[in-house]
């Protein structure tokens, strides 16, 4: 344990730098993926014929291994191979592919009677979507966001196989020097990050759905 502490202090600047990159590489793509998945997921829920091709295409996107995506994107985007932008774009694509299905399924799972009731109360279709359908879809969407967040954490570390600077470098560093300390430190960081993000999404979902607690008590 003291080894870990010493290592952390000796390499503080470097690790802080990596940690910063790691966090934005996980969170930003997740938010972008969600922002894109909400409107397209809505389209797929609203128009039946959009659903199969959209789910098919995003399913194929999701089968592309992350390492491959990190490698091919520089060729497409014209970026340097070690540019963190490649990782960010790749993770945004994965987050989107995962979330578009969650959003579509979540919106579709809202009972038709509830929507009919909202219309009967005189709500316009926009009011109904934002005030009734979307809030009721939050739990299912949040479940998707949790999976996407945790999988982003795991995928980011893979980028260190080709050398993109972030906390995953602790693994490759440990391997090159055959020392366990940076590896264990890296594992602690990544697992803590995954658990923290998971808890954060869960808390956000709870805050957005106060009626669920009212019913439960």
């Amino acid at each position, binding site marked *: 344990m003291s080894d870990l502490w010493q290592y952390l202090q000796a390499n503080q600047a470097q690790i802080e730098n990596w940690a910063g990159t790691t966090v934005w590489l996980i969170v930003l793509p997740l938010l972008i993926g969600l922002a894109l998945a909400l409107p397209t997921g809505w389209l797929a829920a609203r128009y039946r014929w959009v659903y199969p091709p959209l789910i098919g295409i995003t399913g*194929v996107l*999701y*089968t*592309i*291994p*992350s*390492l*491959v995506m990190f*490698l*091919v994107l*520089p*060729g*497409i985007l014209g970026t*340097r*191979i*070690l540019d963190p932008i490649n990782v960010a774009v790749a993770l945004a694509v994965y987050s989107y592919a995962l979330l578009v299905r969650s959003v579509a399924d979540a919106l579709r799972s809202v009972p038709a009677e509830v929507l009919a009731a909202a219309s009967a109360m005189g709500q316009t279709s926009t009011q109904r979507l934002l005030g009734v359908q979307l809030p009721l879809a939050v739990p299912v969407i949040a479940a998707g966001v949790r999976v996407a967040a*945790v*999988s982003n*954490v*795991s995928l980011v*570390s*893979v980028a*260190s*196989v*080709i*050398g993109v600077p972030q906390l*995953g470098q602790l*693994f*490759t560093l*440990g*391997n090159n020097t*055959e*020392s*366990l300390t940076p*590896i*264990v430190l*890296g*594992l602690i960081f*990544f*697992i803590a990050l*995954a*658990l923290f993000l*998971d808890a954060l999404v869960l808390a956000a979902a709870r805050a957005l759905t106060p009626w669920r607690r009212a019913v439960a008590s």
Partner: protein
Amino acid sequence: MTARASGTGLPGLNRVLIWFNDPRNWWGPNGLLAHIREHVVYTAVIVTVGIVIAVPLGLWIGHTGRGIVLVGGIANALRAIPSLGLLVVLIVELSPHISVAGGAGGLLARGSIPYAVPALIVLLILAIPPILTNTYAGIQAVDPGARDAAIGTGMTATQTALRVELPGALPLVIGGIRSATLQVIASLTVAAYAPLVGGLGRLIVDGDQNLTDPHFGYPAMVAAGITVAVLAITVDAVLNLVQRRVVSPGISGRYRRHS
């Protein structure tokens, strides 16, 4: 590091086409075809072992309802462990203790076993949770009426599990196997970070050593990457066909009674 950090001089993606067009890159012990064969065999072995472990366990958990919280929790926690980190821990801690010098046919190169074992463990840890959680979730989602009917006709617990619950849960079980297979195919590229472990990841990881090399550099990495993606999509399509064949039409919803 300097050569890579300033590496704007990447060979263009057109080099990848040239790479694919060169027969020397396809044949021979270090060719694309040999790597594809290794990739497929590794995947088949890992997924088969995963099925042998996870399906009976999931069947038992789903049937008895015991251990769901525990196993579900462990499966979720495993997802949070970065596979690269686990792989490196095992390479540093476990590999030096394995002293098998030999190999296995054309699949495991001589001396590769100390590194193949960590890779195998990591990939199994990735493959088991989706199969396990889908199996017990599938068993639990089986229509209780069908289960009651099975018991009512005098079936034993084992018969109920194997003849009613398993066929009923099959779409979800195969769904779990499909996602496990995709995970393994994709993660084998990361597993190649372990020295001497074969498969298409070899070309990707080794290409990083000298990016500008026309045969083993960036073009080979991208070519191998594209091959992995094509392999993943093909295998998934095949498993989709298998699913259509083995799932009873009454369960998949393809059979509808016209009344």
